């Protein structure tokens, strides 16, 4: 096993994928559901919403769904890198979004927007590097590391902002950006699409993306292949942090305000979108475009629940079950294909 090179490892995993064709019916169904289920489920959900839910297909509602999907999607496409590298997730996006939103609004009120963006970028890089060094070089558990950086970050933010709400100037460029749209499509959704395309290229067409994926498949093989795995992990966390920063900008622009609990719940919904999209929490498999589809699924589902007057509690239950269900299908498909 040790002698296998990186390319051989990846080739092996492709052979495994191909040999799935000779499996019993149940196994084939499960692997198919784990790989492609999202296309069918999203289609069914959208058709269901259009037919049965009053007011779903209206232009105002679609614009609203896109508005809410944009920050979620931007976080999720970034976090896909951490998930594919086999490090479960980055819980600290909660703190990252809030930090970036507050810095963006507060600093741009005081100075100007470029300086605010630069300051937020410094904060995002700091998050990414701290998480990445702890996980990549110290080999610490990503869940616990990002849990602790969440609390450190939120603590710092609450201390410095005093927990107060920051308002942007009512007619400033931030507010204009947040409320502008082309047809029903808000600018923030366009930012999401651009981010998704850029990150998909980064994941599939660059050396860095290749290393992130191969690290998720086999950490040892990647290291023995001669690459600095610690740097790869730092890179994955930095990508996530920069995406969360942009999500913070978009959120701040949408409401023209920023407060220290802006990001609450985003880590969880982003993970739901990533996993439902078919990116494996076991690492190595997945894509940014799949995450985009997952974001559509989660946003439409949330919108249906809201339009039907179902409360916050039930939404949490639904998302929790969704994550467990999607991961179960993935896990069972892995089990039967290994038999």
């Amino acid at each position, binding site marked *: *096993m*040790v002698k296998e090179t990186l390319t051989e490892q990846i080739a092996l995993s492709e052979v495994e994928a191909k040999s799935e064709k000779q499996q019993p019916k149940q196994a084939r169904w499960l692997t198919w559901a784990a790989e492609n289920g999202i296309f069918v489920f999203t289609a069914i959900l959208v058709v269901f919403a259009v037919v049965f839910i009053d007011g779903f297909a209206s232009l105002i509602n679609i614009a609203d769904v896109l508005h809410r999907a944009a920050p979620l999607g931007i976080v999720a496409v970034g976090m896909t890198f951490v998930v594919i590298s086999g490090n*479960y*997730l980055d819980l600290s996006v909660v703190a990252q979004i809030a930090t970036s939103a507050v810095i963006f609004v507060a600093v741009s009120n005081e100075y100007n927007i470029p300086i605010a963006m630069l300051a937020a970028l410094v904060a995002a890089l700091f998050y990414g590097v701290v998480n990445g060094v*702890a996980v990549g*070089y*110290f*080999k*610490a*558990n990503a*869940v*616990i*590391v990002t*849990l*602790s*950086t*969440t*609390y*450190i970050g*939120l*603590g*710092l*933010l*609450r*201390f410095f902002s005093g927990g107060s709400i920051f308002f942007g100037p009512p007619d400033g460029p931030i507010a204009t950006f947040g409320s502008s749209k082309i047809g029903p499509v808000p600018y923030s959704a366009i930012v999401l699409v651009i981010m998704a395309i850029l990150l998909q290229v980064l994941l599939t067409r660059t050396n860095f993306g290749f290393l992130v994926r191969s690290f998720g498949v086999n950490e*040892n093989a990647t*290291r*023995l292949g*001669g690459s*600095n795995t*610690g740097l790869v992990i730092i890179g994955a966390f930095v990508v996530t942090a920069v995406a969360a920063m942009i999500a913070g900008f978009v959120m701040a622009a949408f409401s023209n305000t920023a407060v220290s609990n802006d990001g609450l719940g985003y880590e*969880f919904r982003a*993970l739901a979108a990533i*996993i439902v999209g078919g990116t494996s*929490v*076991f690492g190595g498999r997945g894509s940014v475009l799949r995450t985009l589809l997952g974001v559509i699924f989660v946003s439409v589902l949330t919108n249906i629940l809201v339009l039907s007057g179902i*409360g*916050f*509690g*039930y*939404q*949490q*239950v*639904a*998302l*929790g*079950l969704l*994550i*467990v269900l999607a*991961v*179960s299908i993935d*896990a*069972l498909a*892995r*089990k039967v294909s290994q038999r």
Partner: protein
Amino acid sequence: MTQTMQLGKVADQSFVGRVRTTLARRTEGRGVALLTVILIGVAFFEPLVFTAYQVSLGRIALIGIVALGLTAVILMGELDLSVASTLALSGVVMALIPDIWVGILAALATGLVVGLINAFFVAVVGINSFIATLGSLFALRGIAFVLSDEAPVSLENKDAGIAFGMPLVGPITPRIIFFILVFIAIQLFVSRVRSGREFFAVGGNRQAAYDAGIPVKRRIFTGFMISGFVSALAGVINTLERTTADPTAGSTVLLASFAAAIIGGNYLKGGRGSIVGTLIGAASLGILQVALTLSGVQVPIQQIFIGGILLLAVTTDPANLRAVLGSVKSLRVGRAKPQVPGSGS
């Protein structure tokens, strides 16, 4: 002459060696170090903590009881992120039932069922426990919100709650007694009972444990049910003391209990750790929190302290430090000579 010298040397070495092996076997080193630092710091800056030991004990019990249950799961190399939500949900369940005893039983049963469900997804379906319990963390909080109509539920029988919060002997409140009981029970379970000792084997090398005939799946079920039950117990105690059940309760407990268990030297990949270590971790965090509160430090700063300690604890595990040394060494050696761990298999 030379012989005696050698003999003396050997004897000396064996004594040092024995001390060294005993020390190496213990995992509480970092916990003891942190506790010492905190105690010295507190003695200098905020000696009030020692006079107000009643408060400190209560705080230690609050953090510690959840951390103790968590330790049982961590010993097997799994993680239970849902403890905080279990605490909140069982409190809500208890407050919703008018009769207090039925309520307590229902709350404890809730904890067991949650543990059962978590263990099912981890052991039978084969999901990573971080993800499975993250899912239940949010799903359970959602259920707590649904059941309570998103508002705190007050206890029907307030007198029982108030009576429960009263100290029995000196500064000892029932919460502290429960904490000590849970500590003794779990300590005896993992050190004296066979199935408890097998937790270490399951965490150390799951395949080897399975080959040795240990029913691995059943142990995982036991572990998650312990952690679910203990966090439900913490929820019951919280609800009794405050006479209300808050569906958002426990969000601070999550961080503190993980920090306590990890500082205590429980290795996250399983197989190494001790209940005593968790106790030391909980003690140091509890004393630190009380000291910070007494010196008027704001809550955000306390969060930074505890988050920082958790980050420090999770990165300074001996195995992690070895990993860092390894990568530093390989950086110096360069890319040309990657280290090949072992040659077989």
